[in-house]
């Protein structure tokens, strides 16, 4: 049944409403949150298997036929992304159980998390550009609140930058939507893919394409519009930073992928792919150079997000099936590894009482297993075989070599080296060197006093995500198969158009 397409959006909404209704029962909030995320993960896995078996699913809300009504579409790309987001949502729910303080819980932390998931899933599943705008807003507004919840001055400072830049990009988005509607007369993605090649008045199409590139560039933290990200991501609690780092920028990348492989592929917008290639090189390089200079763990990881976004943009700008599949695989790998590193930085902070790498050390001596857990995502991110990052980078670089972009491939390889360097920096500083405060160093009392159950809750997500990184690396083929199918669907819009418009023109 096609109704399953709505469930990943509807379920978090229902969970959030139930929590608002019983606003004082914090224990209920915790349980509902974890159960809701787990159920959402289950539903999105069913959705993915349905789409894999039966092709693209579409749902016309209220029975108003496309292109007039609102359409929700689950193709391979959307459903893979929904599974990834539900998975990260689930691990964040666990991690929040161990780390979020009661005050935040009272001020609607869990309902906001659910609404955030609703916005993210909505953005992945919608087939209508104005509707996409609405989901972006749902996602942004809940992320604004999550960012300032707690109200420390540092958080407010970060939030101002985050909110201003994102509101600006939303208004650019809205302007682009208006011009596009005026030019093409429709906002349904499938209808647009069909109509744009036949349009007579094409003057404004390149303008619209550039506007969309800017707005999604801001959301994805692409060079030169990335500076809001390292200014804000290190301020909220780790659970929030982690879900932001894993998912929010990837929604921007998803939108770029959708727009510039399905909708804007005609002559007037083809130059966008060239622009994206150049910007991707800068994104990779600037991001990693920013990271190398940092000593605050969270800032370092925030800069890495930007650098990794560069790889995805590079691959999807190449436009070959292998490159798109590579970009998608890269995105999934990165969501898992990046979220995991943020979780780990939270544990390190709890153990040693500081984010600053210069002030901590000696963790390996007392917690060797934690060192192992750290190495999996860190080496994964750098691209060491047999972990998932190796395959992701291999695909991207292979696609780059195939299309003879040697300079860009060179940049990508150098950036890889620097990524490895900064991961080793964390390893050396936090795990390997002696604690600057002497034998044993600071042991955070708060961590030692934590009940075993809560400790388990913050270690479990790291183990789960680490396992996924290893599994992606060792058992690469089936996952690549999914990504490859998604890439073929994206590059040939025919099936998508048929699924939405029912084969009629």
């Amino acid at each position, binding site marked *: *049944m*096609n*109704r399953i397409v*709505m469930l990943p959006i*509807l379920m978090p*909404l*229902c969970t959030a*409403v139930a929590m*608002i*209704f019983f*606003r004082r029962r914090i224990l209920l909030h915790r349980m509902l949150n974890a159960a809701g995320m787990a159920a959402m993960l289950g539903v999105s896995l069913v959705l993915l298997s349905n789409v894999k078996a039966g092709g693209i699913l579409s*749902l*016309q*809300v*209220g*029975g108003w036929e496309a292109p007039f009504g609102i359409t929700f579409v689950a193709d391979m790309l959307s459903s893979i992304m929904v599974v990834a987001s539900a998975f990260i949502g689930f691990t964040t729910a666990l991690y929040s159980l161990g780390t979020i303080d009661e005050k935040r819980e009272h001020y609607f932390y869990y309902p906001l998390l659910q609404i955030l998931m609703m916005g993210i899933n909505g953005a992945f599943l919608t087939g209508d550009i104005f509707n996409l705008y609405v989901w972006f807003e749902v996602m942004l507004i809940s992320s604004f609140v999550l960012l300032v919840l707690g109200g420390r001055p540092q958080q407010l400072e970060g939030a101002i930058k985050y909110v201003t830049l994102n509101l600006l990009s939303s208004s650019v988005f809205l302007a682009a939507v208006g011009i596009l509607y005026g030019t093409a007369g429709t906002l349904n993605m499938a209808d647009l893919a069909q109509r744009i090649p036949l349009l007579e008045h094409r003057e404004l199409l390149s303008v619209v394409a550039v506007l969309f590139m800017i707005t999604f560039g801001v959301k994805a933290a692409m060079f030169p519009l990335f500076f809001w990200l390292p200014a804000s991501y290190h301020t909220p609690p780790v659970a929030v930073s982690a879900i932001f780092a894993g998912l929010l920028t990837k929604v921007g990348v998803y939108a770029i992928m959708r727009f510039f492989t399905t909708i804007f592929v005609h002559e007037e917008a083809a130059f966008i792919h060239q622009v994206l290639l150049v910007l991707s090189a800068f994104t990779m390089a600037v991001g990693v150079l920013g990271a190398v200079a940092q000593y605050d763990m969270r800032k370092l990881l925030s800069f890495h997000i930007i650098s990794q976004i560069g790889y995805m943009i590079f691959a999807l700008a190449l436009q070959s099936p292998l490159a798109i599949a590579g970009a998608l695989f890269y995105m999934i790998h990165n969501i898992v590894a990046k979220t995991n590193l943020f979780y780990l930085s939270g544990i390190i902070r709890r153990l040693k009482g500081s984010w600053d790498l210069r002030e901590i050390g000696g963790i390996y001596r007392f917690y060797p297993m934690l060192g192992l857990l750290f190495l999996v995502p860190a080496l994964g991110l750098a691209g060491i075989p047999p972990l998932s990052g190796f395959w992701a980078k291999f695909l991207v670089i292979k696609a780059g070599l195939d299309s003879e972009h040697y300079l860009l491939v060179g940049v990508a390889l150098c950036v890889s080296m620097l990524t490895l360097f900064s991961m080793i920096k964390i390893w050396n500083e936090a795990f390997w060197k002696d604690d600057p405060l002497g034998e044993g160093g600071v042991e955070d009392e708060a961590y030692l006093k934590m009940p075993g159950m809560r400790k388990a809750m913050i270690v479990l997500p790291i183990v789960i995500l680490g396992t996924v990184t290893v599994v992606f690396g060792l058992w690469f083929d089936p996952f690549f198969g999914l990504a490859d199918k998604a890439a073929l669907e994206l590059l040939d819009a025919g099936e998508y158009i048929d699924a939405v418009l029912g084969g009629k023109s």
Partner: protein
Amino acid sequence: MYSIILSTASRYLLLLLLIFSVFLLLRGHNEPGGGFVGGLVAAAAYALYFIANGIEAAKTVLRFDPLRIIAAGLITAIASTLPSLVAGERFMTAFWIDTGIPFIGKVGTPLLFDLGIYFLVLGITLSIIFSLAEEDRS
């Protein structure tokens, strides 16, 4: 500042404005009006009462926590989609019952959805106004 004229008038205005907001809500489907506007007018009615009589009095008259009203509105809106799910139609498909009674006419799930929006807007507006008022007092 307490004004006996405003305070007396607000008691009658509250009722009148609430009736007007329900009128707007019911008028909404085919003519200008609807849940959003109705909810705003209802919130304005309570806001006026609060300006005339103070925050405690306004909260007493409202009886419910605005957050509960928000939740109730969302539940109503979600409930309006249930018939389409149960009947196996596409999500959010409208269902209408023709009551045949003059002035009431057809009643359907879009009205229920609008009612949800009405409560949602009322609850959100009031929770904003009330928290600003409490901020001011403290």
